């Protein structure tokens, strides 16, 4: 008899897990709360992906195609998880949506993703107050919709500032961890801005540049050497507005001394937080969270997708900030763990 698996979350990790499990021959139900698949890539219409500058729409098309053309995968969009009960050989899950239903699954993969940090929670950046202060995700939407313009007056920005670590590495907002990808994503965005605006002055305000691993030269160095982007070391204490321009107030820690510099456009590299879905579902499935609120990986040295409960697996940024390519890899890691788990179970 065939085993039934629920994959919760239709972002890159969930899509990959659903497709792979379907290819293994499991009966997969993919549950997505929104009316679209593709997660953050689709939500913010990422056109060009970090780190390899590949196409976002092409990725979504491929991943969605791999589940839609899969006879073993049933896709339920606009659907959320209601009550969850542990039954004999798995979990009985109430699905709420256009087609409410109850089903029993022998294994569950949580691919509930992340939420971007909401910068209105940190008033010093003036987000929501000054129109020319936007988030990195909003910049991606700007790339998708048309040329880069100042939201306040529609003019071409002559100067652009990126503020790193917004909502990350900051006890004041409660997030003491690093969101890992924002440095590299900002570098990628600065390279894209340079392609559109050959003369714009682009400055990055950072505490550390954490373009780790292979992204050091391919993104960080490239943004400097080929795109003429300037990195200024120092966190921004306050964004104010003067003569219609956001003004960044900070301390330049490499030469010491405070500065107050105006910019036409300010991009906040807002970090990643456990999503609302991660928080809700971890309670429903009674799995442990690690201290930052992400899903606890029970045995990361054995398999990245194991949680504190047998039969419940995690993939993607539900267990911590990560890049799209890593989320996709974890979709496969979780599929393997599900397969090993179900093959060892005695099926009556």
């Amino acid at each position: 008899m065939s085993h039934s698996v629920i994959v919760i979350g239709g972002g890159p990790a969930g899509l990959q897990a659903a497709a792979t499990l379907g290819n293994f021959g499991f009966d997969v139900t993919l549950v997505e709360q929104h009316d679209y698949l593709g997660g953050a890539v689709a939500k913010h219409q990422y056109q060009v992906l970090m780190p390899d500058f590949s196409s976002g729409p092409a990725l979504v098309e491929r991943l969605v195609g791999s589940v839609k053309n899969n006879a073993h995968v049933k896709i339920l969009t606009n659907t959320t998880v209601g009550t969850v009960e542990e039954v004999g050989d798995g979990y009985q899950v109430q699905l709420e949506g256009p087609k409410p239903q109850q089903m029993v699954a022998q294994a569950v993969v949580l691919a509930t993703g992340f939420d971007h940090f909401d910068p209105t929670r940190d008033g010093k950046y003036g987000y929501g107050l000054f129109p020319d202060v936007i988030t990195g995700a909003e910049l991606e939407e700007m790339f998708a919709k048309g040329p880069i313009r100042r939201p306040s007056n529609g003019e071409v920005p002559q100067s652009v500032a990126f503020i790193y670590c917004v909502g990350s590495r900051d006890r004041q907002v409660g997030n003491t961890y690093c969101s890992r990808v924002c440095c590299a994503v900002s570098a990628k965005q600065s390279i894209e801005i340079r392609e559109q605006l050959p003369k714009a002055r682009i400055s990055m305000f950072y505490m550390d540049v954490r373009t780790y691993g292979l992204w050091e030269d391919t993104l960080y160095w490239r943004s400097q050497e080929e795109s003429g982007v300037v990195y200024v070391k120092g966190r921004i204490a306050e964004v104010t507005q003067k003569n219609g321009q956001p003004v960044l107030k900070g301390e330049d820690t490499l030469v010491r001394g405070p500065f107050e510099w105006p910019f036409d456009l300010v991009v906040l590299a807002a970090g990643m937080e456990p999503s609302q879905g991660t928080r809700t579902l971890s309670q429903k499935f009674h799995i442990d969270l690690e201290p930052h609120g992400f899903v606890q990986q029970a045995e990361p040295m054995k398999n990245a997708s194991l949680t504190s409960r047998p039969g419940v697996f995690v993939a993607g940024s539900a267990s911590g900030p990560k890049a799209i390519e890593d989320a996709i890899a974890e979709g496969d890691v979780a599929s393997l763990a599900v397969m090993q788990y179900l093959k060892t179970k005695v099926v009556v």
Partner: protein
Amino acid sequence: MAKGSGIIERSLLEDDQIMEEENLVMDGIDISGRWNTMLKTRVHSQRDLDSWDEVRASAIGESIDNCIQCGMCTAGCTVAQEIPAFNPRQFIYWVRVGRKDDLIKNADVIWRCVGCYICTNHCPKEVNTAEVIESIGQWLRTQVPEKMDPAYRANHEAYRHQLETYGRLSLPRLQAEFLSKLGRQKELFGPDLRQAAVKMLKDGRAIKTLLIGRPRHWNRSRFVLTDSARA
């Protein structure tokens, strides 16, 4: 009384940050000296990025974009050991973030580079640091020539002039031009140089040097030294 002497922790401030009039009367009230002491703001608000454009556009300065401010250059610098104000990393940073005021304030030390190229050889990002510093120095020479020590300027100009004119550097001629630019021609006829001149006349080196002539096609090669090549 010395300027700013009424300020506690005076040693933390630089002279040009302090505004203090020796004699000042306002509305009939005498507020001379420390009564009118004011401090200029430390906040930097005017970025000037033109210097960066000029340096990166120059043949010897284009690698400035590679700098990641790791500090390897200053750590190994021969001059920085002796003159802490000579900090190649900081000069590069000032240019890149548009701190023209700091560059001009510290222009007098930038020409202290001895050209050992340890910075260039150490740089993990392949910044040709020694030549980038030279490029920044060239730019500062156009901005604040008065900040250049007369001996440095005479040396710099004599070198350039000798090379452009003859295509080679001849020590006697270089020394003669350098000293005459400083009005120190007399030293040419001091006992040491006189002795050296006699020796070189005797062993034929003086004649050889004068007869060696310019390198082949020097007029064409000279172009790289001209301002039009730099532009």
